């Protein structure tokens, strides 16, 4: 039977054909383009329009950047060099970069101090942001960092930040001594002890002991001021926000109502109004000559504002937890503080991360509002002194693009970190 068909089969292939490439239209760039860019007539038109728009944008922007002038004493000199050609006048950045970054009054020979503080900031927040990568011992430096940064940026006697630090240490010692008897005794005892310590050391003569050159707050400016305000206010407003959120959920009516009124009042008022209060209205109450530090006033106001928002974000996180979690804590016999610390807050904060980051990014950009109360932050420097100088009046795009770039780098960094953190903390099976 095997030869039945022998005559009817003319040819039998006895080896495999080598694989050939798919037809030209079904592979590689062409297939991708057909599938993604020209899948229908309408999409094809849209693709062409988009390409043309991108071409227009690039052909306008690229020569402007590539042709840019980086060395010139004024905008008029820029225009002379360009002689009618398209090009940005980036010379303003070359000449005024130090003012944009540090403000116009910060002494130029000690720029290394805020720069060092900025670098140390990363060392300080690294163990907080990446707990698994860096050793926990680095948290000691994180705790010391605010005092180091104050000493570096403001200068003055080293004893001031040391006394401030010791005040916290004294407060903590008193707290840990009494907390075993009662939380309230430890908490308020600690606060009283710290205040007492600061009050007493306030009388000590500290002038000139291991002093760095002192820089008054009024001289801070530029992007440094945005970073100071942003960092300080965000890091302060998270603990305050947690406290307010817990207070709002509390069973104790007085605490609850204080928190509710605070949050609702602060959220109902625009930030710019609070800044005006800090700058203008307080000046009426302060006796002339007493200069209650303007940056401190602004930090207090922005922190209040941000903590009200963060409190609401965290309250959302708390509300999202099923009641069973609270009951689980109770059934384990944990007290309130333990329950919150070990069970509720870790879950609630995880849910709140996108919201907190949203507030943090918004807050960081809002720090530019201080230019309205005549502080020279990055935007204030641009709008005020630099655009008002006879050399650079008329240079808008270059300066504002630079500001946008700085803010974008920071905000995008924060946003990327928060997305990474969400993935890292993800424990459910999705």
């Amino acid at each position, binding site marked *: 039977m095997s030869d039945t068909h022998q005559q009817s089969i003319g040819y039998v292939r006895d080896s495999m054909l080598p694989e050939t490439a798919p037809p030209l239209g079904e592979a590689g760039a062409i297939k991708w383009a057909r599938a993604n860019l020209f899948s229908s007539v309408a999409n094809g038109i849209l693709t062409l329009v988009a390409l043309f728009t991108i071409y227009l944008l690039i052909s306008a922007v690229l020569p402007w950047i590539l042709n840019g002038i980086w060395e010139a004493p004024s905008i008029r000199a820029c225009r002379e060099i360009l002689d009618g050609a398209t090009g940005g006048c980036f010379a303003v950045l070359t000449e005024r970069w130090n003012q944009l970054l540090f403000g116009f009054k910060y002494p130029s020979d000690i720029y290394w101090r805020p720069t060092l503080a900025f670098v140390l900031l990363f060392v300080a927040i690294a163990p907080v942001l990446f707990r698994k990568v860096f050793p926990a011992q680095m948290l000691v430096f994180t705790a010391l960092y605010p005092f180091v940064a104050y000493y570096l940026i403001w200068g003055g006697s080293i004893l001031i930040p040391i006394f401030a630090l010791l005040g916290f240490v004294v407060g903590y010692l008193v707290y840990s001594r009494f907390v075993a008897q009662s939380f309230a005794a430890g908490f308020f005892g600690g606060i009283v002890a710290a*205040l007492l310590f600061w009050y007493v050391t306030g009388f000590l003569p500290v002038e000139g002991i291991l002093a760095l050159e002192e820089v008054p707050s009024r001289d801070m400016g530029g992007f440094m001021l945005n970073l100071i305000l942003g960092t300080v206010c965000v890091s302060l407003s998270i603990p305050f926000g947690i406290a307010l959120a817990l207070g709002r959920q509390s069973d104790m009516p007085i605490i609850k109502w204080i928190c509710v009124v605070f949050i609702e009042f602060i959220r109902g008022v625009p930030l710019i109004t609070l800044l005006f209060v800090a700058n*203008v209205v307080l000046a009426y109450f*302060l006796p002339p000559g007493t200069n209650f530090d303007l940056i401190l006033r602004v930090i207090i106001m922005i922190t209040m504002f941000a903590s009200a928002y963060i409190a609401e974000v965290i309250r959302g996180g708390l509300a999202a937890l099923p009641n069973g979690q609270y009951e689980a804590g109770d059934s384990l016999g944990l007290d309130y503080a333990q329950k919150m610390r070990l069970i509720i807050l870790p879950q609630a904060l995880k849910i709140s991360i996108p919201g907190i980051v949203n507030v943090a990014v918004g807050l960081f950009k809002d720090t530019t509002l201080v230019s309205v109360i*005549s502080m020279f932050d990055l935007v204030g420097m641009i709008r005020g002194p630099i655009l008002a100088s006879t050399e650079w*009046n008329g240079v808008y795009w270059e300066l504002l693009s630079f500001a946008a770039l700085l803010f974008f780098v920071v905000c995008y960094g924060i946003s990327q970190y928060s997305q990474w953190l969400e993935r890292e903390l993800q424990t459910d099976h999705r």
Partner: protein
Amino acid sequence: MKKSVILGTLTVAGLAAGAAGAATLDDVKARGKLNCGVVTGLVGFGAPDANGEWQGFDVGVCRAIAAAVLGDPTAVEFIPTTAKTRFTALASGEIDVLARNTTWTFSRDVDLKFDFVGVNYYDGQGYMVPKALGVSSAKELDGATVCIQTGTTTELNLADYFRKNNMSYQPVPIETNAEAQQQYLAGACDVYTTDASGLAATRAAFENPGDHVVLPEIISKEPLGPLVRHGDNDWGDVVRWTFYALVAAEEYGITSANIEELSAGTDNPEINRILGTEDNLGAMLGLDAGWAKNAIAAGGNYGELFEKNIGENTPIGLSRGLNAQWTDGGLMYAPPFR
């Protein structure tokens, strides 16, 4: 420590607020620094330069006052103020004098309780047109489209002017000066109107300033001058006469170049009185005999300040106009030093 500061300040605030008005001169001398309110940045009138030093026409007035009172033109703490914070800063005592292109108006003088000590720049609303339009007078602007900042007095002045001259116009409302520059250059309007000094500064920032002209008509009065708190007349006198010393110095030809030579003594008793070599006018103000000499030496006389910061040889290129000496047909007129 900070807490105690707050509590302490709150309790004494009420008491101290009343005392804020008195004896500014003593306060300034005790402090060793003049707190001078300036603009956060206005071309030619006040802005820090690349080295962080404040420069400008209004800044020059601050330096002259510091030189007169403290003998040192650098003993000034410049406190930048915005249009919104300037009056509170002065009323609360945060600053001793406000030299910030502020228009002298009835309500600011009377209702807000300030004293304008003089006028250091007579400004007024003007028009700028492209040269190509071929217009040489505002009277020829019938039917023009005008770029105008909304919600300002300039808007009202414009309407008044065109109605008075029986002309019609098409307003193009804009929000800020920067926007106005773009709109005007793009040809969205034939005319741009704002204060004449602002027009000059705007024009100076153009790529081809020569293609645009500021018309000669000025349609409103904007007298800009330094001001102090109401109620401390001694301090008001110091600021007023320091400013007039600068004006009189120009009239009598005292410049920063020849001041040393003239203060050796001249035949002109008025010059001698200003420079403190005859009669002791300084003592009447509670200052040194050399107060006016120091003020003039700080940055030159009124004319020198003008030429250096906003005059015709600067990129802003303002002509003296109303701000010339009365002997040259302007309004700068210092009362006699006697």
